[in-house]
C-alpha cells in the first residue's frame, strides 16, 4: 500500500488515495493533523503529537518540536538523555502515521510519497528519505510541497488552469511555485523559496518584541533556557493564532508561581514581524522572473501552510498582487492530499490516468572550478553550473572540464548547489575524484554528467575519454550514505522505544494535557488540577472501564472550562 505523507515543521498529516479520491487519515485521537512533536522519557516511553506538545510545557528537556529545521544537518536533539537526529525523530512521527493508516485500512503501508519543501537542498532531501526508511517505508518519491498543493488545488475540478501561484508558508519553510494545468498535465514552471522562513520565525519575532514588556524584572532569565524557550514559544504561538481572529490578544505565561501577561495589538505584531514580511517578496519575484510570467497573468494566488492564516501575511499578499488570494484549499490539508494524489499517480491508479505532473529543480547544481584571471593568477573556488535552476526534471546535463596543471594526476570535483558565483556561498554536497593520465595542462578532459530525477535526487557520472575511466556518484559522502548496518543500528535504537497502545492514546494525551494545565496555573487552581489528575490516575488503576470513562469525562470538562477562561 502506497500512502502520501506531509511531514511538516509544525504538523504532519497522512492521506491515502482510495476510490478515486484523496482522503486524510485521522490519528488515534481522531485528529487529521498530528503535531510534529515527540517526547521521549528516560525509560524510552514515547509521546507523539498533541500529548508531546503538552509535555513540551512539563518536560521541555525530553521534547522536540520543529525538528524539521535541523533536517540534513549534523545537529541533534537530546530527548530522555539520548541524542537523536532530525531524521530519527521524523521517523518516529512517520511510524505513528503508518500506524494510523493501518488502523483505518487494516493493512500496513510499506511505501510512501513524502513531501519536502521545494527549496530543500539535496542533503535535506536525502535525510528525509532516510527518515522514511527508518520508519520502514520505501520512499517511492519525494515531492515538493507546493507541487503537492498544486495537485490538490488543480484537481479540484480538473479543468485547465492558467498559471497560478502557490504561496506556501509553513511552520519553518517558505516556497513559491508557479504552476499551470492543461489537459490534465500539471506543469510546475518555476519554484523559489527560503528554507529558513516560516511561522516559527513569526513566533520568535513576537516573543522578542514582547519580552521586555512582559517581563521587565527579568524573571525569565532565571528559568533554564530550554524551559524558557518552550514557554515563550508556546505563549507566542497562542498569541499569534489569537491575533488571526482578533485585533488584540493576550501574551501570557506562568513562571513558577507568577503569571506574566501583556496585551499585544495587531499593529504591534505587524511591526514586530515587518522584516520577516519583507522577506516574503524575494522568492515571489524570483519565481515570476524565472518563469517569465507577469504577476497580472496569474489566475490565482493559492495559499497553503498554516502561517498563511496570519492577517499580516494575507495583507502583504493582497498588497503585492493587488488582489485577494484564493483560499479554496485547506491550508493544512492540501499538501498531504496532494501527496496521496502523487501516490496514486506513482501507483498508476486508473482514476488518474489522464493526469501527469512535471516539476522543476529549484536550484542550480554544478561543480567547483578554477580559472586564470587577467593578472595571471589563479582564481579558485568558482562555481560552474551544470543544471540551471528551474530546469524541468528529470534532467541530465553534461559539461566538459580540463586539467589546469602539467602532469596532473587526478581531477577533483567539488559538487555544489546554489546561486552564488563562488562556491563558498553555496551548499557543498560532496566531492568526486577521478584519476587522469598525466599530460600537459589542458590536454586531459573529463565529462561530468549531472542527472536529477523526479524526486529531486542527484546522480553524477564522470567520464575521462582519454583512458575511459568512469566514476559514478549517487550518494556523495559518508554522512549521506550511512552503510546499511548503520541504518539497522538506528532502527534498533528506535525499536527499543516504547509506544503507548493505541487504545490508551486518549488517556495518555489527557494526562499530558492535565499536567500542562497544572504548569500553566498557579495557586488554588493548580492544587485543584493536581487533585483531578490524582483522581483520574486512580481511576485508570482500577481498570474499570466505567469508572475510567466517568473520570475522563469529568477531567475533560474541567480542563475545557479552564482553557475557555484563559487561553493558556
Amino acid at each position, binding site marked *: 500500500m502506497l500512502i502520501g505523507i506531509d511531514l511538516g515543521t509544525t504538523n504532519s498529516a497522512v492521506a491515502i488515495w482510495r476510490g478515486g479520491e484523496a482522503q486524510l487519515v485521522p490519528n488515534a485521537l481522531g485528529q487529521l493533523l498530528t503535531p510534529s512533536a515527540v517526547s521521549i522519557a528516560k525509560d524510552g516511553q514515547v509521546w507523539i503529537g498533541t500529548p508531546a506538545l503538552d509535555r513540551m510545557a512539563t518536560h521541555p528537556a525530553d521534547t522536540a518540536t520543529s525538528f524539521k529545521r535541523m533536517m540534513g544537518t549534523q545537529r541533534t536533539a537530546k530527548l530522555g538523555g539520548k541524542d537523536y537526529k532530525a531524521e530519527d525523530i521524523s521517523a518516529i512521527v512517520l511510524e505513528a502515521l503508518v500506524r494510523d493508516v493501518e488502523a483505518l485500512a487494516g493493512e500496513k503501508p510499506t511505501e510512501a510519497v513524502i513531501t519536502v519543501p521545494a527549496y530543500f537542498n539535496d542533503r535535506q532531501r536525502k535525510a528525509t528519505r532516510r527518515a522514511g526508511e527508518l520508519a520502514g517505508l520505501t520512499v517511492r518519491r519525494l515531492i515538493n510541497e507546493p507541487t503537492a498543493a498544486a495537485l490538490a488545488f488543480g484537481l479540484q475540478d480538473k479543468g485547465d488552469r*492558467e498559471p497560478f501561484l502557490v504561496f506556501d508558508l509553513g511552520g519553518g519553510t517558505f516556497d513559491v511555485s508557479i504552476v499551470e494545468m492543461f489537459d490534465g*498535465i500539471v506543469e510546475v514552471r518555476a519554484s523559489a523559496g527560503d528554507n529558513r522562513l516560516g511561522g516559527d520565525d513569526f513566533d520568535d519575532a513576537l516573543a522578542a518584541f514582547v519580552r521586555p514588556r512582559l517581563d521587565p524584572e527579568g524573571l525569565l532569565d532565571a528559568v533554564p533556557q530550554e524551559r524558557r524557550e518552550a514557554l515563550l514559544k508556546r505563549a507566542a504561538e497562542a498569541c499569534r493564532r489569537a491575533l488571526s481572529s482578533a485585533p488584540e490578544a493576550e501574551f501570557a505565561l506562568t513562571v513558577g508561581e507568577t503569571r506574566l501577561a501583556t496585551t499585544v495589538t495587531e499593529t504591534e505584531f*505587524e511591526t514586530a514581524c515587518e522584516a520577516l514580511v519583507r522577506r516574503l517578496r524575494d522568492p515571489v519575484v524570483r519565481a*515570476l522572473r524565472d518563469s517569465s510570467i507577469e504577476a497580472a497573468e496569474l489566475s490565482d494566488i493559492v495559499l497553503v501552510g498554516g502561517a498563511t492564516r496570519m492577517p499580516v501575511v494575507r495583507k502583504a499578499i493582497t498588497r503585492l498582487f*493587488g488582489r485577494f488570494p484564493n483560499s479554496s484549499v485547506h491550508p493544512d490539508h492540501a499538501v498531504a492530499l496532494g501527496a496521496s494524489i502523487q501516490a496514486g499517480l506513482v501507483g498508476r491508479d486508473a482514476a488518474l490516468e489522464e493526469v501527469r505532473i512535471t516539476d522543476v529543480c529549484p536550484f542550480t547544481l554544478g561543480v567547483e572550478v578554477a580559472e586564470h584571471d587577467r593578472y595571471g593568477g589563479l582564481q579558485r573556488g568558482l562555481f560552474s553550473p551544470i543544471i540551471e535552476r528551474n530546469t524541468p526534471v528529470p534532467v541530465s546535463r553534461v559539461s566538459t572540464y580540463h586539467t589546469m596543471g602539467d602532469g596532473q594526476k587526478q581531477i577533483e570535483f567539488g559538487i555544489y548547489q546554489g*546561486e*552564488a558565483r563562488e562556491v563558498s*556561498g553555496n551548499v557543498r554536497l560532496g566531492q568526486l575524484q577521478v584519476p587522469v593520465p598525466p599530460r600537459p595542462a589542458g590536454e586531459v578532459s573529463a565529462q561530468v554528467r549531472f*542527472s536529477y530525477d523526479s524526486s529531486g535526487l542527484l546522480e553524477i557520472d564522470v567520464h575521462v575519454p582519454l583512458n575511459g575511466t568512469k566514476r559514478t556518484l549517487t550518494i556523495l559522502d559518508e554522512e549521506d550514505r550511512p552503510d546499511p548496518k548503520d541504518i539497522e543500528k538506528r532502527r534498533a535504537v528506535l525499536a527499543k522505544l516504547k509506544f503507548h497502545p493505541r487504545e490508551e492514546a486518549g488517556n495518555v494525551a489527557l494526562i499530558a494535557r492535565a499536567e500542562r494545565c497544572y504548569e500553566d496555573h498557579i495557586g488554588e487552581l493548580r492544587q485543584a488540577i493536581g487533585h483531578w489528575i490524582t483522581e483520574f490516575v486512580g481511576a485508570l488503576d482500577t481498570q474499570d472501564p466505567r469508572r475510567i470513562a466517568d473520570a475522563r469525562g469529568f477531567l475533560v470538562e474541567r480542563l475545557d472550562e479552564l482553557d475557555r477562561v484563559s487561553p493558556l
Partner: protein
Amino acid sequence: MSVTAAFPWSLLGIAPTGDARAIRSAYAARIRTMDLDADVEGYAALRQARDAALRIAKSMAAEPGAANFGEQGEAPAAAAASPADSPAGTPPGTGVGTGAGTPVLGGDRHGDPALTTQLSPIADDAAVRFTPTDAGPAAEAEACGESLLPVHPNVLAAVRLEGHADSDAVGMEALQSPFARLAALLDPDGPQGTAPLDDAQDRQALAILNAVLDGVHWSPIDRQDEMENWLAGLLAQAWPRSAPLLEPATDAFGWEQEWGRLDARTPVEYLGARLRGYRFQRRVLEPSHRYHKAWLELARPGRAGPLRLLRANGGDVRGLLAGVRKNFPELEDHFDPQRVASWEEASGWPTGLIVGGGLMMLALLVAIADPGPASHSDSGANPAIFTPAGKASGDPAAEKRAVDEATAAAVAEVFGPDRDTAWLHRQQPELAIALELSTRAELQDGKGTGIAVERAVEKVRQRFYLDAGTLSGADFDQAMHLRLGLLEAARRHGTATCLTYLNAGVLAATVPVPDTLRTQERALAASLADRGLLIAPGLTGPRTASVPGPLVQDVMRATGLAHGAVAQAMQGKGSDANRCAVSIALLQATLRWKGEHRRDVLLLL
C-alpha cells in the same frame, strides 16, 4: 499545408499550426505516453518542441495576416504589457533624460551592457581579510504603522521636502512624482554630470529616495520589480553622484543578497561592487586596519624602490593588491600605477640585508613627493570619493576674498605673523601660488580656513626635508632636528600617529606640537624662503644607506631592543612600536654622530 513536418511538429505529432491549444494538447497527449524518468532525453526534446512550436504560433499570431489564429493562452501577457497602465510614479521617460529610462515590462533585465563588470563579491580570506561591514538584519528602513491598502495614496502625490531652498535649481516642478524628481536630480547627462551631491542636494535626494521607496513599497509586485530595476539602473548610471543613496536603496530591496549570485542583475551587481568597495575603503583608511599602511603606500605617487619596506609590509601590499583586484577592481584607481608596477616588478620582494662589519642596510623610502599645486594634496592618502567637490560657487568676489584671507592666514601660520602673502610672492612665487591653489581647493571642498592652514603647514614641512638634500650645513641639521622633534611629538600622540608620519609624511593636525618647535619651524621656513631655498622637491629616487655599527649599538641601547629586532625595524618589519622607536633613536644617534654616512642616513630618515 506545404510546410514540411519537421521539428518541432514531427515530435509533437501534429501539422504546423498557430493554435496554441492544439500544440499544448499534442504535448499533453505525448507526455502521457512517456515514462519521464526512463526517457530523460525524450522528455527534454518534447519540451523543446512544444516551446518552439508555441513561439512560432505566437509570432504567427503577431503578424497581421495571421491574426485569425486564436491564442487565448497567451493573450493576458499582451494585455499586461500595455503601456497604458505604466506605474503611477514612473518618470515620463523622455524629459528627465536618464539613460535608465522608463521601466519596460518584460524587457531586458540586465540593463546597460556598458555597466558589465566582473566582480567577485566574496573575499578570498586566504589572501585578504575583506570582511564586508556587517549590514546586520535588513534595517527597518521604513517603519509603517499605517493600515495596509493595495495602493498607497501618496504614490502619486508630491513629495514635500524640508529645507530645499534650491529645489528650483533642479529644474523640476514641485508637484512632480518623486521618481521624476530623483531622475532629474541624479541625471548623469544633466548640468552637474556625475559630480557628487552637495549637502543640500544630498538631503534632498535622500528625502526623494524615501518617497520613491515608499511608492515602491505600496505597489503591486511587478510594478515593484519594474521600479526596482529602474532605480538600480538610475543609481548605477549616476554613480558616483548617487553614492549617498546606495545604502538605503540596497537595504530596502535586499540587494545585498543578490551580490555574487549567478543571476544578479547587472546594475545591482555594479552598485554592490561600488558599495562594498566604499565600505572597504572607509575601513582601510582607519589607521588600525591591517592594510592601512599598504593602502597608503600604493596610493603614493611615483615608483617605489628597495626602501619601500620600511613603509609597508610586502605581504600586506601583495595581499591588498590581490584583494582589491579580486574584489574591488575599481578601487585600483586610487593607487598610483607606477607605484603598483614597481611593487609588482620586484620579484622576490626584497627583505633587506645585514651587511658584515656591523653595517646594517637601512631601507626607507624618500619620495614624499609634493603632488604639486594642481592636484589635491591629499589625493593619495585620503581619496575622498564621497566628498563633494566643486560646490556651486555663489559670489565670485566673496569667494576670492575668502581665499585671500585664508591664504594670508596660512602664510602667517607657516612663516610667522610678520610675513604676508605679498612677501611670499616676492620670495618664492611658485610656493605662493601652490599655497593659494590648495587653499582654494580646500575652501571649495567646504572645508574651513583652519583646514586650509593645516594643509599649508604640511606642504611646507614636507618641503623642508624633501629638500634636505639640497640643504647643507646648519640648515640641514636644523631641518633634521625639527624632523626629530615632530617625530617625537607624533610618538607621544601614539604609535599609529608616529608610523603614519614616518610613512606618509603627514602629521595629523590633532597632534600637539610644542610652541618652541613651531617657532623654530617658522624661523627656518622664513629663512629658507628668504633665500629662495624652499623649492619644490625634484623626483627623489629611492636610496639605501649603510648604518654604521656604532649607530646600531646606540639604537639598541636607546631602545633596549635586541639586534634582530632593530634590524627588522630598519627593514620595515616588526611591530609598529619598534619601528617608531628605532626610527627616532636612529635619528637622534645620527644627529650626534660625526662619522661617515651621516648625511646618507639622515637623508633617509
